[in-house]
């Protein structure tokens, strides 16, 4: 049992560090941090990764993946997060991409994968529906066959960055006669198709990332259906476990915790820093210890995935614990912000981070709700592990 980096690993780490230092310029970082310029900056960075061949560590090499060992993936992700760089937008690269190369036909692979890798297409996810929530299989959006097209009617909700998207991948109901999980199909839909309306959802973080997407007689070619009609649930489910592994966001939490430490060292109350305040420090240490345990849990799952095992209910554990830790760190940052924890949209007030802390905290409430709420994840573990 060991996790020591080999010489190759150490060399790889240096290569990653050098690459980031060279390519992720302060100027780019500044644009990525600004909501107004975020999308362009993010695409610019993803294209840099694409040119380097590092855009899709989780894909098989034959489709453009890196062929990295789990240790290399771990190193890359760690260095990325520690440099304060956001992960790639997941909808194309981590969600629909794997579905397409696993279940799509050759034509679909040729048509969609290159633009996902090059970040020329921006994807969004159409799973949840108003009224369905964590009960995905209750979905009502209907697709009716009409010649070579489906005609889609219905609505999707909580669609992150739909306002930026070129494509949406959707679960739609093509048959209502059998069990709820059957009769669902997996469609790729061009967002420019007539009949699609994107309505912003204003959220408690006072920011716009979520949307409702309304479909009114939207024609989607049958050629845009993944796999068999009525079998879409299977494809989506295969993806969910993968999604949950990355949802733990250990590397990002490490970075955020390091930032929180730095802020606590600067914030003074009654002549001593918050970092040397025992109550705050013990809360911080408790969170850090949980994160240390989570990090090795993620590594254990990665090690088993690298042996070809499919991530099982452990991925639900990573999701639950990962989001709990993210929220704990957001709370620590809010605590440091003190009187400034509620500042709205202005970063020149008090501690400059107050508004950002608030936004991250409020939006962070969603982490335990979306992607299968933590309650649903506990049900999953209860069934799969406890077999109750």
């Amino acid at each position: 049992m060991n996790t020591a980096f080999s010489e190759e690993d150490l060399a790889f780490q240096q290569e990653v560090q050098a690459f980031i230092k060279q390519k992720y310029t302060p100027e780019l970082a500044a644009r990525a941090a600004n909501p107004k310029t975020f999308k362009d900056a993010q695409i610019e960075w993803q294209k840099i990764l694409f040119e380097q061949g590092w855009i899709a560590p989780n894909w098989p090499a034959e489709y453009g993946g890196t062929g990295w060992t789990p240790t290399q993936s771990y190193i890359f992700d760690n260095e990325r997060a520690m440099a304060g760089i956001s992960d790639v937008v997941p909808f194309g690269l981590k969600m629909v991409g794997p579905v397409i190369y696993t279940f799509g036909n050759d034509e679909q692979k040729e048509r969609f994968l290159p633009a996902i890798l090059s970040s020329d297409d921006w994807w969004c996810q159409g799973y949840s529906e108003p009224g369905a929530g964590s009960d995905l299989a209750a979905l009502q959006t209907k697709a009716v066959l009409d010649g070579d097209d489906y005609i889609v009617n219905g609505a999707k909700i909580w669609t992150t960055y739909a306002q930026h998207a070129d494509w949406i991948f959707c679960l739609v109901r093509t048959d209502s006669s059998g069990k709820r999980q059957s009769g669902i199909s997996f469609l790729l839909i061009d967002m420019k198709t007539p009949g699609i309306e994107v309505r912003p959802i204003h959220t408690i973080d006072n920011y716009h990332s979520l949307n409702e997407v309304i479909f009114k007689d939207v024609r989607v070619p049958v050629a845009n259906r993944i796999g068999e009609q009525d079998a879409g649930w299977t494809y989506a489910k295969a993806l969910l476990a993968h999604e949950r592994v990355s949802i733990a966001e250990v590397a990002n939490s490490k970075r955020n915790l390091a930032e929180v430490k730095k802020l606590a060292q600067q914030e003074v109350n009654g002549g001593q820093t918050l970092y040397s305040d025992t109550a705050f420090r013990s809360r911080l240490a408790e969170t850090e210890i949980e994160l240390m345990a989570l990090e090795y849990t993620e590594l254990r799952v990665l090690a088993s995935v690298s042996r070809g095992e499919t991530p099982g209910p452990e991925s639900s554990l990573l999701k639950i614990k990962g989001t709990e830790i993210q929220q704990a760190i957001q709370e620590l940052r809010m605590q440091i912000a003190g009187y400034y924890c509620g500042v709205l949209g202005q970063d020149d007030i008090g501690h400059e981070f107050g508004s950002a802390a608030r936004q991250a905290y409020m939006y962070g409430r969603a982490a335990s709700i979306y992607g299968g709420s933590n309650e649903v994840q506990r049900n999953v573990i209860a069934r799969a592990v406890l077999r109750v």
Partner: protein
Amino acid sequence: MNFDYSEEQVMLRDSVQRFVQSQYEFETRRSIAESETAMSAENWAQFAELGWLSIPFDEQYGGFGGDIQDIAAVMEEMGKGLVIEPFFANVILFGGLLQNSGNDALKEKYIPQIIDGSLQGAYAFVERQSRYQSADVLTSANKQGDNYVLNGTKTVVFNGANADVAVVSARTSGGQSDEDGISLLLVDLSSDGVSRQNYRLMDGQLVANIEFKDVSVSADNLLGAEGQGYVLMKAAELQGSVALAAEALGIAGKLNELTLDYTKTREQFGTTISTFQVLQHRMVDTFMEYELLKSMLFRALCSWADGDDEFELDVRALKAKLARSGKLIGDEAIQIHGGMGMTDEMSVGHYVKRLMTINAIFGDGDYNQQQFVQLQDSAA
């Protein structure tokens, strides 16, 4: 032993309740919060008419002669309605300081204006570096003849944007964090050398950073004796904490109610989610936290009424308890509401954000628990 509000208090409470139910629907509140001043002048005039603005003041100035229990009865209902008008900042903080100031001339001049609704006041006591130590004061007031010359910047001044006047804590002597040497001055905010930067907090209220540059303030505007302002500040902190706790109790009850109602209508997996035992037990926990928070508020209100030595200890405990209960209740409210809890459209997030704002005023849970411990040590 008696845990009932008096008849008068019940009347006050019912009056706020009626207002909230008939004139302060959530969408009305939203449009007020989003307006330029983040308050409704008509509502304020109505508050004056209903007598709410007179509660903490002596009868000789036209006041109701109320105490912290009267205030609590009102604040709980304001919490339920998420009333955004600056009752707390203007009447309780600014008005309370004035009422306790011992400066009869100032009282005579300003209290009637508060009561009739024509004056907006604020209490400017937070500084960039002070965090929760209100004795950490860098703003200076130097005596020059019959005036003080005020220099410094106050931050997160509640009602600071709308205020005509403010009570400002300033150092007239002593070191940066000494309790001695702090003086409270009532400053006209239209004076030369006053500038403001207004901004909003997540609960929708409009606050300000206020900079004072060589602002001349008459020595007649001193609240309490020179250098002895801290005792008034401390009283404002304790009474303000109780008032905020009452508001928080109203919010907590409302959050529990909204959440419970939601679970009874929301269907998932073919049944209303109120039938899920895990959600039931978690809502039992939030119900218990609400009851415990209420008990703690009553404890502080009783020890106030009893003239108990332990009032400060009880207030610190109350504020610490508020932090924990509020966190649990707020988190569960959003979580159980699911995706809907994340939307600005639902009221639940707005209640949570006000609760979080309250948590940070006069110190968070950790801070108040530490004060609790230090009080015990100094009493021992």
